[in-house]
């Protein structure tokens, strides 16, 4: 597949660096993301994956470097030069963020319908019937039975919560989704179903995704390209199959051989 149909990248990261005081979170990450492209960020715990994701999604301010994003109207915006309201608006309309822990991404005391409808109400939807209709559609798309629309996520299983979180993010048809270990903490069979669903929706909607995972199998299944992180730095990047089948960096070789036994 060729993702460079539209010649302008959707997002460009340049020299992204984050220091937590004297501790390094992530250093000098640079890459381009195109529309509809899925990039996996892999690496062991503490290697800087979450930091990179939070930098990219405008949730923490970089110590150095910049992020440029192509808005729906074609204008290129520097994420940290835009106003805070603008950045927050982008975050809840054209972007989505799926947390590993669904409790962080959902309102646990609000019904599933209200969780999905919130973004619509935030952008000015004021017709209850329309909001409920959109929520019903989205619950169906993530395979949540319609009769669970008025239940709160407290009554949901882990897998359902994660699917609800996805619906809540996708309802505004964002062009870019960030996911931090979306299948982490789920049973293997539940993981497989979620991955299938993610793969289907992402390709149907042609959403660009940056997905953090320590699971190379998840990366192989979902992503077109992969970035390998170690001690805060991106040490190898390329097409997912190429990197996983023929890793260059010794660390990647170790990672591949230990997690994907032949």
């Amino acid at each position, binding site marked *: 597949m060729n993702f460079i149909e539209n010649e302008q990248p959707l997002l460009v990261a340049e020299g992204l660096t984050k220091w937590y005081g004297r501790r390094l979170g992530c250093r000098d990450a640079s890459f381009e993301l195109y529309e509809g492209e899925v990039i996996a960020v892999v690496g062991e715990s503490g290697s800087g994956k979450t930091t990179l994701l939070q930098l990219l999604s405008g949730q923490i301010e970089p110590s150095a470097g910049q992020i440029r994003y192509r808005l729906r109207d074609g204008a290129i915006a520097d994420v940290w030069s835009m106003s*805070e309201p603008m950045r927050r608006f982008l975050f809840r309309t054209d972007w989505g963020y799926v947390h590993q822990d669904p409790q962080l991404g959902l309102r646990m*005391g609000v019904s599933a*319908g*209200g969780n999905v*409808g919130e973004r619509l109400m935030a952008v000015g939807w004021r017709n*209850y019937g329309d909001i409920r209709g959109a929520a019903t559609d989205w619950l169906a798309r993530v395979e949540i039975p319609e009769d669970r629309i008025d239940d709160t996520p407290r009554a949901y299983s882990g897998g359902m919560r994660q699917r609800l979180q996805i619906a809540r993010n996708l309802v505004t048809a964002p062009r870019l989704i960030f996911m931090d270990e979306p299948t982490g903490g789920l049973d293997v069979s539940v993981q497989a179903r979620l991955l299938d669903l993610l793969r289907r929706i992402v390709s149907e909607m042609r959403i660009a995704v940056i997905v953090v995972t320590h699971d190379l199998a998840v990366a192989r299944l979902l992503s077109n390209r992969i970035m390998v992180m170690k001690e805060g730095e991106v040490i190898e990047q390329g097409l997912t199959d190429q990197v996983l089948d023929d890793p260059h960096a010794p660390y990647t070789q170790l990672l591949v051989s230990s997690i994907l036994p032949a």
Partner: protein
Amino acid sequence: MSAPVYNFAYLDEQTKRMIRRAILKAIAIPGYQVPFASREMPMPYGWGTGGVQVTASILGPEDVLKVIDQGSDDTTNAVSIRKFFTKTAGVRTTTSTLEATVIQTRHRIPETPLSETQVLVYQVPIPEPLRFLEPRETETRRMHALSEYGLMHVKLYEDIARHGHIATTYAYPVKVDERYVMDPSPIPKFDNPKLSDCPALQLFGAGREKRIYAIPPYTRVVSLDFEDHPFQPYRHDAQCELCGAADSYLDEVITDDRGSRMFVCSDTDYCETRRAMGYAAPARNSDAEPARD
């Protein structure tokens, strides 16, 4: 005989100036919650210490004070606040809405239309309308700052999903001057339309939470709703059984130990004034004689 140990209206002048500054800021930014250094008052929180501090700060010797609690001038709460200001400020008090220049209220807006020469001071228990869904203060503050009010409609959505209609009947959220979403304190939503375009200055004081906010005279106040579930004020479909009023907010009161009930105006001054003018109970089928023609 001995001189009072406190200043006029209890609070010292420096504290009043601080509170007045908060009030002025609140008036300048309609609906915005201004933090203030709430003082200990000689009464427990929940007794309207926020409202009392606001009243104390705006009261002058010429003012005539009315205090109502759920529409009534003679509950313990209303009586003791009135006594407090009689004692500490020596101001004249009244139960008449027309006569009063300052009205401190808990949970009602008087039925009698207010005028430009009056100030209505509300006692507020919880000033933050977003608290119900977002307990983090840093987050609610940012939501106000950036006018991110989607969450307020989530609350109304939840109401409809659960009850089939917007079941919020008290403290019904409003938007002030097309900018800040505000909790009007636990007044019945029947009173919400009176918030808007009101000739009187409306001040809100939350003592425990240390917040003051305001609706300046003639400010547009809109109750939040959905296009297909529009805001509807509610009153019992009945007439007051003392004065026959068909337009006032009614309380249902139990009249004997067999559970008999009757509807009466919640605003006692309104009801008494009407009765003094000759209005009386409506004719009832079961009654032998109608009370008036």
